[in-house]
């Protein structure tokens, strides 16, 4: 994946990697979250779960290692690490639903101030289905959403109320964007970090809900 123009996606993925502690079992959503795997520090012991029935996703295979029976949830050919295990889909979602996964990093179309997440369908466009997203948001112990701070038209993706159909209500714990890191708390959205090249004011202006600014926040954080 090194060929990809790094820039924004890479910066978000690198920041998201910091959410992962050594010893964690982690589920990375399809799309940008999958990129996070490329940046996991070699000093951390991390086991990646794939909801199609694999604990211990490895690197993409070399040409001669490709096994058509071994894919991740994004249907990409992968390998398995030493110590990996395979299981069926009911067991996989028992693992997810039963709160055994420490962290899920998912993509988002919209996140509300209350932690509602919309990331599975756009009305009017063909419905593709929610896959495992609705189970994941209720299962993993911590849900981090990574996404651009604003959409292609420059409008906020962090909103007072999601306009798109929900994936889950009150499920997001943390949002990491190209501009900031925010936590969903009972009091509201709390900004923790501002990314390089952005000011607090710019983040506030590009976020629909009011943001709580604690006494200490980290500027030029990533």
């Amino acid at each position, binding site marked *: 994946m*090194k*060929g990809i123009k790094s820039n924004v996606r890479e910066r978000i993925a690198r920041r998201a990697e910091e959410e992962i502690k050594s010893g964690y079992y982690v589920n990375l959503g399809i799309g940008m979250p999958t990129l996070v795997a490329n940046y996991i520090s070699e000093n951390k012991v991390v086991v990646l779960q*794939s*909801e*199609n*029935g*694999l604990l211990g996703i490895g*690197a*993409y*295979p*070399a*040409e001669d290692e*490709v*096994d*058509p*029976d*071994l*894919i991740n949830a*994004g*249907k*990409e*050919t*992968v390998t*398995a690490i030493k110590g990996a295990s*395979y*299981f*069926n*889909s*009911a067991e*996989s*979602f*028992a693992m*997810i*639903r039963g709160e055994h996964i420490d962290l899920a990093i998912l993509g988002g179309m919209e996140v509300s101030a209350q932690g*509602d997440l919309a990331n599975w369908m756009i009305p009017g466009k*063909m*419905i*593709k*289905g*929610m*896959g*495992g*997203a*609705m*189970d994941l948001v*209720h*299962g993993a112990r911590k849900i981090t959403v990574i996404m651009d701070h604003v959409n292609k038209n420059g409008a906020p993706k962090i909103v007072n109320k999601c306009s798109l*159909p*929900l*994936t*889950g*209500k*009150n499920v997001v714990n943390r949002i990491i964007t190209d501009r900031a890191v925010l936590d969903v708390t009972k009091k509201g959205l709390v900004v923790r970090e501002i990314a390089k090249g952005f000011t607090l004011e710019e983040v506030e202006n590009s976020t629909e809900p009011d943001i709580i600014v604690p006494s200490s926040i980290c500027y030029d954080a990533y």
Partner: protein
Amino acid sequence: MKRQFMNGYDAVKDIADGSTIMVGGFGLVGIPEQMILGLVESGVKGLTVISNNCGVDEWGLGLLLKNHQINKMIGSYVGENKEFERQVLSGELDVELTPQGTLAERIRAGGAGIPAFYTPAGVGTQVAEGKETRIFDGKEYVLEKGLKADYSLIRALKADEMGNLLYNKTARNFNPMIAAAGKVTLAEVEEIVPTGTIEPDSIHTPGIYVQGILEAIQEKRIERRTVREG
């Protein structure tokens, strides 16, 4: 001891119009390739299909779709198939989307004699609309029902003559639950081995769930061949 079939058509030819069938696989991985081709050959119509995905335009369940053999599809992700989109928009195809974990658990419940269970997935979304919700220990859950099928078509790596099955890697996916949820379960396998050669502690699906076996070569098409550099 279990019935063995000559080919995909031979295995599925008794499936009648209007049947509910479950089909194993995740994407194109772990699908019973020859039995799906057998359904195309049989021309059975009006099927309700329960499967996580619906194949692609030219392979897997996509072939049945193209052939207008499916009336209703219950799955979790159907985004790889343009014909699917066309038939849904034109009203030819009825679709019920279910969260993937709920689908897996509903199938498991069907095979396990559990008529219904509560799950958090879908609460507060359109998935829960019209369904009973209930609070346990302060958290809201939605009631979901078990699923059964007239026929379950699955794919495994090996079967012995008693129908005991072994799956390979992520080709396992929905197959074991689907095996248990069918009134009649037909297993397509890469190899039939003598009874006694699969380690009893390692058997994934005990033969009690399997009524017939088909040994068949698999094409194993790859949807997203991703390799690392160097």
